[in-house]
């Protein structure tokens, strides 16, 4: 019984992830193309996508490799870009923390923007879900996207510099992120957080090594939490 319902939740996760095919596909392709153009070989590019499995951090690392930045700076900056997955991990913990360790370790690997944003909305709106059902849904959201990500990277790496600049693939990343942000703006607290995030990111652009991103993220999280508290006191937050 549990097994069959878990199975159906897995497929619901996979189905809900379908729109992200149009994100992970071009995005992976783009990483492969840019990495090949920069001079990385196929083994490097494929290992990169398989083991790191984090689009924005991979792009950041690639950019800094091209700029001949010191290795430690590259690692610190790319991990800073990826710090948000630690916050995702913490945010998922109340929902998935009861699962066996090996499942949590596997879930950790698959924690990315797409699996997180789909799952957290599902878990919040369906409080009756059991831990195995949640895990099944979570893995379902990566079942198509992760293999697609690896494949697209490899295809991009093989295509290399043959893609014309007129495709403007460079803007696939911002469009993908912005498309995710729109539906997240559910309450005034979320909107306030997003606005602070944008303003601080602009003001902090001079801070080196991507640290401005962390400053903006922290300021925006505190803003969201404070606005939520304020609205709750007035009975306006549901």
């Amino acid at each position: 019984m549990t097994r069959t319902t878990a199975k159906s939740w897995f497929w619901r996760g996979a189905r809900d992830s379908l729109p992200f095919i149009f994100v992970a596909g071009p995005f992976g392709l783009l990483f492969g193309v840019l990495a090949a153009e920069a001079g990385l070989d196929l083994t490097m590019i494929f290992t990169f996508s398989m083991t790191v499995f984090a689009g924005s951090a991979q792009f950041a690392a690639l950019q800094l490799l091209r700029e001949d930045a010191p290795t430690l700076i590259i690692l610190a900056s790319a991990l800073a870009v990826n710090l948000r997955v630690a916050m995702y991990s913490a945010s998922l913990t109340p929902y998935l923390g009861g699962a066996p360790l090996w499942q949590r370790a596997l879930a950790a690997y698959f924690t990315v923007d797409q699996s997180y944003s789909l799952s957290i909305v599902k878990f919040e709106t369906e409080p009756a879900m059991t831990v195995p059902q949640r895990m099944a849904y979570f893995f379902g959201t990566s079942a198509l996207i992760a293999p697609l990500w690896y494949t697209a990277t490899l295809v991009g790496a093989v295509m290399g510099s043959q893609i014309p600049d007129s495709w403007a693939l460079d803007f696939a990343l911002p469009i993908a992120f912005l498309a995710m942000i729109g539906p997240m703006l559910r309450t005034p607290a979320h909107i306030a957080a997003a606005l602070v995030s944008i303003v601080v990111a602009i003001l902090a652009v001079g801070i080196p090594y991507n640290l401005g991103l962390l400053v903006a993220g922290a300021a925006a999280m505190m803003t969201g939490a404070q606005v939520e508290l304020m609205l709750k006191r007035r009975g306006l937050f549901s």
Partner: protein
Amino acid sequence: MTNAGVPFDPATVWTVIIGLALGSFALRFIFIGMVGSRAMPEWVLRHLRYTAVAVLPALVTPLVIWPAATGGVMDTPRMAAAAVTLAVGYLVKNVLAAIFSGAATLYLLLFLLGG
């Protein structure tokens, strides 16, 4: 594009890949793996609710205002595409619709403005 086509020192690249792989996994594992089912305080959860909406706009903003493809010069098609993507995502609450609207805006304006 300064060193396009010139291979990096492979040792540096592998150091970055392995370090990033281990570091990224550690970041993802730290809470879900170590904290497990222990309850987290409400103030932590209240901040975490805003994680995505706090970090992603800060990540995107510089890419929109100073796009790498134009050498960091503000660019009407990309600004417009960003605005349309965000607006459609907010109003329609559909990621795919937002992506298509944004991409259509970008291609249309690049075509019209001869980008």
